[in-house]
Every structure is written in C-alpha cells, then in structure tokens.
C-alpha cells in the first residue's frame, strides 16, 4: 500500500526531525514546519528541543545534587545523599584510575559529564511516541526528546572537552612545547610535514570520535525504537499476522529498552572516561 509506506517514511522523518527555530524562507523568524524548511535555515538556527531538554535535564541534575550537598551530613547518609555519595565515589575512583596529574577541575567535570550525558540518554527510554504525540497536540510540529541523538549536542560537549584539552596542553607544556609535540614527532624535525599531519589528525580525531560515538550510538538506538514502533503501525485489520506483529512490537521494544539501560549508562561512562583520558594526555609530556 503506497500510502502506508509513505506514512512510514513520514513517521520516521517526523521522529528524526528536530524542532528548529530560524529564518524561514519568507524572511521571518520562526519554527520550521518541515525538514526542508529546517535545512534551508542553514547554520544560524537553533534546535529548540535539544536546547530545552538538555537545559532542563542539566537543571534537574544540578538541583538534585545541590539538594543532596546542602543537606549533607557527616553521619549516616540516607536516600539522595547516599546515592550522590555513591556516584561521587564511583566517578572519583574512575578519575583517580585514569588521571595521573593533579587538577581540581577534573572530578566535577567528570561528574557533570557523566550525569548530564546519562540523563540525556535516559530520555531514550521514554516511549518514542509519547512526547512527539503530546507535542503535536499542543501545536509543536516536532520534538526530539533525546538531546544526545542530535549531533549538535554531542559536538557541543565534545568541543567543550576539546577546548579544555587545548587549554591544558598549552598550560602544561607551553605553546612551544605543544607545537613541538604536534610537529617534531614521531619522525624528528626533518619529517615535520608528516608529523604535523599525523599529530593533527590525532588531535582532531579526539573531539570528533567523542561526539560521533555518542551520537551514533544514541541515534542508532533511537532509530531501532522507531523501526520497532513501525511494526505496530502496520495494524490494518484483525489478522493473525497483525496480532503477531503487534505483540512482537511490544516484546521487541521492551527487550531493546532493557538492553538500552546498558547502552545509555555505558555511553555516558565512555564519554566521561575518554574526557578524563584526553585531559590526562594533555597533562602529560610525550616521551
């Protein structure tokens, strides 16, 4: 049925489209109502859903930890404080394990990255139609609830980490030392162009791999949720085949969601660990 395949494509597109605010073709500023419109806005447009969700999640996480910190006692911790202490201990031991230098920024940075990325990934576990349908009903054309499926968010985080890497590289080794590291190895000063290419790629690969790993994993996970959800959309009449599809949609998405508990935690952890490792490399002299 052509209309059905059309609606499937539409369904997928709808779920993968961010709520974009920018300059509309007619010259006014507003929200794009189709993927084409959003594309035409070019660089100077905002993905409102990514923006709002990441901001909201960040605020919630900050609020929770702030509340735990404010009521923290030296006695037996309970509830929220216990959980926060537990996570802090875990992250602190990760930092201690991978970071050999001394930097007071790294612990809080790792904590923030882990919980922010984790909470953004966690949105993936909400049934995908809930937010989209809800937003559709209140007149918002698109709403992608998982910020980490938007490369803007993951690249934003990764560029932040990259700036820190550059800053600490220069701070620890001096501009000369940092440039020397980029140009004078591994082949000595006569192989300078090759060195620059190799080390440059090495350097640029850090933020790109950081951002794309998270984005790729979350995007793929979201995609599979959408595809599984499409099975139920094939509902066209009470037949055994349709009932089977419907049932398997429930079971598959349940299985995928359960598997995703692992993925979202792992991805947040990997992002955090790689940040620590990159910053550790920035602190260390090459040999």
């Amino acid at each position: 049925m052509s209309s059905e395949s059309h609606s499937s494509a539409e369904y997928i597109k709808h779920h993968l489209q961010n709520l974009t605010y920018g300059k509309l073709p007619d010259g006014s500023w507003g929200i794009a109502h189709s993927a084409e419109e959003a594309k035409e806005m070019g660089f100077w447009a905002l993905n409102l859903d990514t923006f709002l969700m990441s901001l909201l999640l960040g605020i919630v996480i900050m609020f929770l930890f702030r509340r735990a910190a404010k009521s923290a006692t030296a006695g037996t911790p309970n509830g929220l404080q216990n959980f926060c202490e537990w996570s802090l201990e875990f992250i602190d031991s990760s930092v201690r394990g991978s970071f050999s230098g001394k930097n007071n920024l790294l612990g809080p940075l790792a904590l923030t990255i882990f919980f922010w990325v984790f909470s953004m990934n966690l949105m993936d576990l909400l049934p995908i139609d809930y937010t989209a349908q809800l937003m559709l009903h209140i007149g918002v054309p698109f709403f992608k609830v998982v910020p980490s499926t938007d490369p803007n968010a993951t690249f934003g985080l990764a560029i932040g980490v990259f700036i820190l890497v550059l800053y600490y590289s220069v701070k620890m080794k001096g501009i000369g030392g940092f440039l020397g590291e980029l140009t004078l190895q591994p082949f000595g000063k006569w192989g300078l162009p090759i060195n620059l290419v190799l080390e440059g790629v090495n350097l640029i690969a850090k933020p790109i791999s950081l951002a794309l790993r998270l984005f790729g994993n979350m995007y793929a996970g979201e995609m599979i949720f959408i595809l599984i959800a499409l099975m139920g959309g094939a509902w066209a009449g009470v037949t055994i085949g349709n009932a089977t599809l419907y049932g398997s949609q429930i079971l598959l998405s349940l299985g995928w969601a359960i598997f995703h508990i692992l993925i979202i935690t792992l991805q947040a952890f990997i992002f955090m660990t790689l940040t620590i490792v990159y910053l550790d490399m920035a602190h260390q002299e090459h040999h």
Partner: protein
Amino acid sequence: MNINATLLAQTIMFALFVWFCMKFVWTPIMAALDQRRKQIADGLADAERARHDLELAAKRSAEILREAKEKVGEIVANGEKRANEIIEAAKEQAKVEGERIIAGAKAEIEQEVFRAKEQLRTQVSSIALAGASKILAREIDAKAHSDLLDKLVAEI
C-alpha cells in the same frame, strides 16, 4: 500522522519496562545503596562505641589510680601510726626498765646501807667496848655492863 494503536503498544511496553526496572534494576541498586548505608551506619556506630569504650577505660583507669593513691596514703598513714606505736612502746618499755633498774639499784643501795649499818653497829659495839674497856679497864666488868653496851649499840 495520527494517534493509533502504536501508542497503545508503547504504553503496554512502557508499563512492562517500568515493571522490569522496578524488579530487576531498582531493587539491586537499592540493595547496594542500602548496604552502603548500613555499612556506614555500622562504621559510625563502631566508632562511637570505641570512643565510648575509650572514655570508660579512661574513667576506669582514673578510678584505679585514685584508689591506688588512696590505698598508698592509707598504708603510709598506717605505717606512720605503727612506727609511732612502736616508738611509744619502746619508750614505755625503756621507762619501765629504767624504773626497774633504778628500783633494783635503790634496793641494793638500801641493802648495802643496811649491811654497812649492821656491820658498823657490830663494830661500833666492839670498838666502844674496846674503848670503854681500855678507859675503864679496871672498873668495868664486861659481863655486868654488857646490857648497857648493847643498848648503846642499838642506839647507833
């Protein structure tokens, strides 16, 4: 794009997922947190108990020290008392002994005096007798005047 049974399926799935999380994710995490809380509580309680024990021990040692001091004082006082007693007793004994010696000496002296007197008496009588007999050699008859002489002796 409209609401259809997909939403229903997702709702069922979500309910199942929440159930799964409650049963298999939430429970172990809560157990771990609970255990951590319990460990910390135990640790703190142990520390508290140890501190309490230390306090008790300190109190007890102070008590023992105080008792020992008291006892030492008592012993010293007893010793002093005993020493005094011994000295007193010795003094008493010495006094008694001295008195006894003095009494003995006195008795001896008296006896000596008595004996000397006795001797003197006997000798005086014979000297007197001899003198008298020399002076009155002719007139006096020893026999006749012996009672007179005896009287004289007794008077000396």
